[in-house]
């Protein structure tokens, strides 16, 4: 009886797995074959979603407040962020001393800071406001910092962070852009000038993929276009292994068909991306960023003839060696607090 029943369970799951097998890429034997196979099974096991939800829902029922490092609240999914690590502004200071071009620093807090009050009571949570303050206080005079924290926390009731994704929305990014670009000496494009199109009203972001928790409402992914503004003429993507790809636009429409829709804004992550526009103003921006910046780039494009985007996540501490900063008129560091801590610990 036991054998038959266990066999039945086994067979059902196996058949489910085999059905998936036809649609996905199966790992080919290699040196890491063992790990890849295990990972493959973990992600493609038959009835994966049902089983996963069975486990996560029952965990929540017996009192757990998070799934896979993501706090579950009624309103939204919030990624846990906690460490005792201190941070400093050494990377920017170092850069500024070396090249002495006008430098701007924006550290973006995550939803766990802005919506701290909605987290489960007493949950582990880093005080990002304090961290940002400490880093800003540590910068050399001359480096200008944009207080993204206060801008965002005053917009708390608006749609500035995705409910199911760990990033901020274009709306949140716009207001930080507005403040930053003024500091950088430009007039921001006013909000009324933008035509906003909903690319997807059923966007479920990375936090959803991690938790499969579908009680939280899905998100809206927006694209802001300024019809009268400058146009992008050329986008060059340079990958870590040296391959170069050219595109005519920064947006990647194919991402909308995939699970990771946030990738729409700049496409596949690459080490370095050079964006050229039809503006003729000799202003060139060097942008050191993490993936938080992706939805701000469309706004910045309106003011520069060339933007060179360096992905800090791929370069790590070696970011200065990727390109020659002296060619650029301004430099901006735009990074989330977590990545700042992770990359420059």
């Amino acid at each position, binding site marked *: 009886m*036991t054998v038959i029943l*266990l066999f039945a*369970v086994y067979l059902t799951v196996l058949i489910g797995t085999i059905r998936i097998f036809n649609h996905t890429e199966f790992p080919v034997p290699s040196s890491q074959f063992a790990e890849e196979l295990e990972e493959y099974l973990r992600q493609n096991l038959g009835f994966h979603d049902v089983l996963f939800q069975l486990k996560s829902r029952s965990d929540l029922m017996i009192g757990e407040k998070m799934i896979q490092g993501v706090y579950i609240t009624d309103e939204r999914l919030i990624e846990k962020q906690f460490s005792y690590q201190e941070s400093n502004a050494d990377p920017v200071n170092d850069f500024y001393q070396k090249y002495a071009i006008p430098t701007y620093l924006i550290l973006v807090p995550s939803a766990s800071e802005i919506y701290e009050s909605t987290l489960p*009571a007493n949950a*582990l949570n880093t005080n990002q406001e304090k961290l940002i303050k400490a880093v800003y206080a540590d910068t050399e005079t001359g480096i200008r910092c944009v207080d993204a924290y206060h801008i965002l926390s005053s917009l708390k009731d608006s749609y500035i962070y995705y409910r199911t994704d760990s990033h901020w929305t274009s709306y949140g990014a716009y207001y930080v852009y507005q403040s930053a670009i003024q500091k950088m000496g430009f007039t921001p494009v006013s909000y009324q000038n933008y035509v906003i199109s909903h690319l997807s009203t059923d966007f479920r972001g990375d936090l959803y993929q*991690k938790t499969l928790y579908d009680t939280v409402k899905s998100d809206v992914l927006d694209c802001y276009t300024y019809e009268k503004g400058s146009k992008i003429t050329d986008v060059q993507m340079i990958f870590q292994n040296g391959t170069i790809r050219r595109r005519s636009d920064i947006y990647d429409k194919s991402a909308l068909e995939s699970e990771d829709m946030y990738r729409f804004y700049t496409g596949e992550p690459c080490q370095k991306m050079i964006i050229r526009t039809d503006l003729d103003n000799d202003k060139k921006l060097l942008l050191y960023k993490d993936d938080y910046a992706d939805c701000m780039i469309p706004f910045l494009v309106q003011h520069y003839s060339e933007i060179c985007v360096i992905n800090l996540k791929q370069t790590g501490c070696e970011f200065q060696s990727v390109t020659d900063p002296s060619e650029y008129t301004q430099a901006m560091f735009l990074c989330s607090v977590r990545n700042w801590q992770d990359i420059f610990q």
Partner: protein
Amino acid sequence: MQIASLTFVMLVLPALLLIYYLIPDKARQGFLVLSCFLLYSYGNPVRVLYPSAFLCYDYGTGLLLEKVRKNRIASTGIVCFSVLIQIASMSYIRNTAQENEFFPFGIAIYTLQGLGYLIGVYRRHHAPAVNFIELALYLLFFPSLFAGGLFSYTDFTKQKQNKHLNIISLSDGLSLFIRGLAEKVVLADTFGYIFRELQQIAPENMSMLTAWLTTIIFSMYLYFELLGYSEMARGLGRCFGYELPKNFSHPFFTPSMTAFMKSYNITLVLWFETNFRRLLFRKYSDKYAYHTGFILTWVFIGAWYGVRIKFILWGFLIGILLLNEKLFLEKIIKKQYIAGIVYTALTSQLLWVLFFSSNLTEAGIYWKAMFGFGNGILDQTGIYFLVSYIALILSGFYIATDLFRNITERMSVSDFGQKIMNFMPLFHGALLILCLASMLYDGQHEHLWLWM
């Protein structure tokens, strides 16, 4: 290969069982040895070199010991040499190669089994293995490589004669395996996850509550991890027709440390008793020699968990406590059952601190916090963890005690209970589903054998 992995449970185990039950009895042993080697080398064939060399050494030395058995000095010399060289290489490998992908996992288990085998031949408890395959199976039996339990060569050879393979033993074995798997992937992995969460808090910032939670969660983590693996090993052993010894028998809530240690990692303690204490100290009737031997045994058991000062101190303290109970406390403990339970629980929890803190200073900070001299009595983090995981901790406690077993046993006696017991297969089916669901969680599956 990890036996608590989807690859093993979903793909390898069914295939192994199918082949094992289809091939003729004569070929089974060979097939099992072959699969032991394949599973061991899976993912990284280089890893198999050390255990193979180890196996050849033990095989040759066993035969050599038999040859020089008349010459007591020579055979003693050979055994001493083997013990020293194997312990040394084990300690060296475990201390240097822990994060290495070439790390020959299970080394702490088969080294002890191999030494037990050599000492057994030396003391003429059993004849040396003539059949190489048999010894290979004994030393590298894959189910018990992860956390034991250890079994003696005599027990192993006895089983060969009366192997019983039928559908009942198979279903028994599979049920046991699934219970073990649940203990590992549902309980131990979750406790491990909470434990690592708690470890992110610096011990200096811990309140009394958080410090106690950390040790309690750790003790549950370690217990269910070791228990899960040994139950899985017993289950698999039964599927293949081998009966492995029980390694744990509900150690929590025992009335004395003696009772606790007697039911915690039983086979390991037994191994050190037979192959160390009785071997070296049985000749001395002197009281002090006996006491020294007793404490030394525990020092070595501590050192087996890891050649570090903290583990050795743990073993030493346990030795002293047990001796103290034996000499002075025995009568009191018999009368004061409840007080005994409290004393055992507190003492064992205080001692686990040595297991997880990275050094003695850190252990001191934990102890300070546990006695209320840390960062206050209660803090928010502690309350958060307590509220989040109280249900899990309580169910962990419940399963760790013998209350659970008592219920199932009582049920099987009564008529009504019998009827309910008929639904046990359903229970195990549901448990398997829960196990598979738990194994889908990412990044929770730390493998204990990295430090074994």
